[in-house]
């Protein structure tokens, strides 16, 4: 499934968020970098992510992925940018 005409959705953002949080565990990150496509396919098969999320991970752009993640509401506010260098 191609991610073109992607319409951002909070549910997909949740899946993406959990997907990337899982990668904070070293064992998962190693598997991911060893065979990224298989790792993503396994997540689809186990029902942790859907087809659209899978397509985004495989072919989506940074902007498309971020657009979905930023829709996630809850304790962690989605923040597009914090600037920490002064305007001089």
């Amino acid at each position, binding site marked *: 499934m191609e991610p073109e005409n992607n319409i951002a959705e909070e549910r997909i953002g949740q899946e993406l*968020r959990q997907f*990337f*949080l899982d*990668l*904070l565990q070293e064992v998962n*990150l190693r598997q*991911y*970098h060893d065979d*990224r496509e298989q790792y993503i396919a396994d997540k689809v098969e186990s029902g942790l992510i859907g087809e659209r999320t899978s397509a985004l*991970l495989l072919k*989506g*752009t*940074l*902007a498309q*992925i*971020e657009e979905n*993640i*930023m829709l*996630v509401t809850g304790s*962690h*506010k*989605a*923040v*597009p*940018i*914090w*600037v*920490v*260098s*002064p*305007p*001089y």
Partner: protein
Amino acid sequence: MLYLVTDPISAEGIERLNPRARSLESCYVEGAHRREAYGRMVEAILTPVRAGRRVCAAFYGHPGVFVLPSHQAIEQARREGYSARMLPGVSAEDCLFADLGVDPARTGCQSYESTRFLEDRPVVEPRAALVLWQIGVAGSSNHSAEPHAPALDALVRVLCTIYGDDHEVVVYEASRYAGVDPLVRRVPLNGLAKAVTPASTLYVPPLARS
């Protein structure tokens, strides 16, 4: 543990490491000058230090590169007699060199904050690479949830006089997510305005040596 990051996944990752960690995002006030926010961050870091706590403050990227409050907090802590140190991280420029395959040693590299570049108008060596940070907020000194770059057109005009309208530049944004490609947009200078994102950095390749 205090932190300031740009995405909710990093935030949650930090809070998993330390459930008592809290974000510095509340230091920003919509519409207020960003310097005020940096002052509040310094105080947020130093207040627990003064109370005898061991404090760690984490910033996205390299904590000492284009980050004012980290430097100020360390300087202030030392002035007050506390021990403080900074540990290096990976900056946007480091990512840019890796993702674009650029070695700053080849031609030399000039690196400026966009607003300061526009105001100071430093002498540019066009045969060396140029990196302009924070082009997505060029000319903006106040915090806004909707970043904008009121000075971007002026910045483009300055660059066009140096490099020419059709000089190809790269709008770059490092990826914050493992395995996801960075944003890389190659555009002529006169098409820059449409390609800029709020968090992007501009890479201007050097002019060919004649």
